[in-house]
C-alpha cells in the first residue's frame, strides 16, 4: 500500500515540476545568484487581469438553537451559500433542520401523540437578500482588529414541519467577523414567520433562531 502511495507522491512532485509554475520558480532560483546585467523591461510574464482570484462567494455551515412555537427549543444545524453582489448587498440561500420535542400537552397527557417522529422534524430552506449595515473593524483586546460587518437580512422560503410545506418569511440580523481574508465567523439571529395549523387552529407563529457558524470565501 505504501509503495502505491509513494508512486502517487512522486507523480504529484512530477506534476508540480511540469506545470509552468514549478519551472518558473526554478528559473528564479538560478537568477538569484548573480545580479542582472541589464534590467529587463518585462521581468515576468503577467497573468491576465481576469485571472485575479475573485472571491465573491461564501459557503459554510452553522449550528445553534431554534425555538419552534409549542414544540420547544432545540439544536438546529444548517448550510449557507452567499453571493456578494456589491460591497453592501449580498444574496444568501440557506437550509437547516432541527428535531422538535413534544408539546407540553403531549407530555402532560402521557399518551396523546400529535405528530409522528418523521413529522417532528423541522426543516427549511430560504433565499434572502442581505445588506451590510455597519461595516468596520472590531477590536479584540488591545492589539487585534478584525474586519467585521453587522448585516440585516430577510427573505422567503419554505418550512417542512408536521407533514406539510409552509411558506415562511425570515428576517433578522447577523455579525460577520473575518479573522482571515478568506474565513468568516457568523453569529445570526433570525425570526422565521409561518402559519401553522398543527394545534387545530391556524395561527401565525414566530420561530426564533440564534446560530453561529463559519464560511469560506471563494
Amino acid at each position, binding site marked *: 500500500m505504501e509503495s502505491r502511495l509513494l508512486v502517487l507522491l512522486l507523480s504529484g512532485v512530477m506534476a508540480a515540476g511540469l506545470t509552468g509554475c514549478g519551472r518558473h520558480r526554478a528559473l528564479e532560483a538560478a537568477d538569484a545568484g548573480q545580479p542582472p546585467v541589464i534590467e529587463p523591461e*518585462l521581468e515576468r510574464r503577467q497573468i491576465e487581469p481576469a485571472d485575479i482570484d475573485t472571491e465573491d462567494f461564501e459557503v459554510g455551515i452553522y449550528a445553534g438553537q431554534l425555538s419552534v412555537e409549542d414544540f420547544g427549543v432545540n439544536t438546529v444545524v444548517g448550510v449557507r451559500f452567499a453571493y456578494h453582489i456589491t460591497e453592501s448587498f449580498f444574496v444568501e440561500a440557506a437550509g437547516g433542520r432541527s428535531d422538535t420535542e413534544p408539546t407540553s400537552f403531549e407530555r402532560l397527557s402521557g399518551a396523546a401523540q400529535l405528530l409522528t417522529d418523521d413529522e417532528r422534524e423541522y426543516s427549511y430552506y430560504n433565499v434572502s437578500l442581505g445588506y451590510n449595515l455597519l461595516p468596520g473593524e472590531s477590536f479584540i483586546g488591545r492589539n487585534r482588529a478584525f474586519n467585521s460587518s453587522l448585516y440585516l437580512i430577510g427573505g*422567503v422560503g419554505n418550512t417542512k414541519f408536521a407533514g406539510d*410545506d409552509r411558506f415562511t418569511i425570515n428576517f433578522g440580523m447577523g455579525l460577520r467577523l473575518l479573522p482571515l481574508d478568506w474565513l468568516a465567523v457568523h453569529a445570526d439571529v433570525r425570526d422565521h414567520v409561518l402559519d401553522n395549523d398543527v394545534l387545530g387552529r391556524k395561527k401565525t407563529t414566530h420561530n426564533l433562531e440564534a446560530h453561529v457558524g463559519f464560511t469560506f470565501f471563494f
Partner: protein
Amino acid sequence: MASALEVCALGAGPGRAARAIAWLAALAALALAPLAACAATYEVIVEDPYLELHTGPGRGYPVFQIAERGERVELIRRRTDWFQVRLPRGEVGWVPLAQLRRTLGLDGEPFDVLAYELADYTERRWEVGALYGDFGGANVISVYGAFGMTPNLSLELWLSQALGRFSDSKIASLDVVHELFPDKRFSPYIALGAGVVKTDPKATLVATTDRSDAAAHAGGGLRAYLTRRFLFRAEYKSYVVFTSRDDNEEIREWKAGFSFFF
C-alpha cells in the same frame, strides 16, 4: 516540503492507521504546496500621486497606508469591486476598482480589469435567478436557469414551489423566451412553456390524494439590468393545468426577483 517529510518520518513509528494518516497529510501538503507557491498574482504601477489602501473591502474601512506614484503593487484577490493589494514593503490592504483603473500594468498599458457592464449583460449566455410571487393565491418561490441560444431566444428551466392554504404544488417547466430588445437596459420578453404540476393537499385536510398534471403557460415580463452581474426580473404567466376532471384549471401567476448572469 520539509514539514511533509517530517510527517512521513513520524509516521514510521506508530501503528498502521497513524501511518496512513501521516501519509495522507504528507500527500495533502504536497498537493497544496505548488498551489500556495503559484498563487496567481498580478502587478501594477501606481500612476496617481498615491494609491490609498483601506483595511477592508468596502465603505467604512479606514485608509491606513498609501502607495506612491511609481510604486509597484501586487494584486492578490478581488471581492466585489475591491482588490486586495500587497505593497513592496509587505503591507496588505484593499483598493477600490475605480482607483485601480488609474494604474498601469507592467507593460505600460492602462490596467484593464473586468468590471461587468451593460455590454456584458447583453452578451450573456447563462443566467440563474430566484423569484417570489403569487400563483393563483398561493405564495410561490421559483428558481430558474436560462441558456441564451441567440441574443433574442433563450431556453429556461423553471422549478417552483407554490405554498397555499389548502395545498402545495411543485411545478417544473421548460420555457422558450423571446426578448424583444435584448441590448436594452430594460428588456421586455414573451414566454411560452410547458411542464408538470404536482399538487399535495394539506395533511390536515381529509380524503385527498396527491396528483400530477401536465400544464402549459404563456406570459411576458421585463428584465432590468441593475449592476455588475445582477438583474431584476418581473413576469406574469397564465397557466392551463390539464386536470383529469371535467374542466381544466386556469391559474395566474405574478412574480418578481433577482438574477445573475455569467
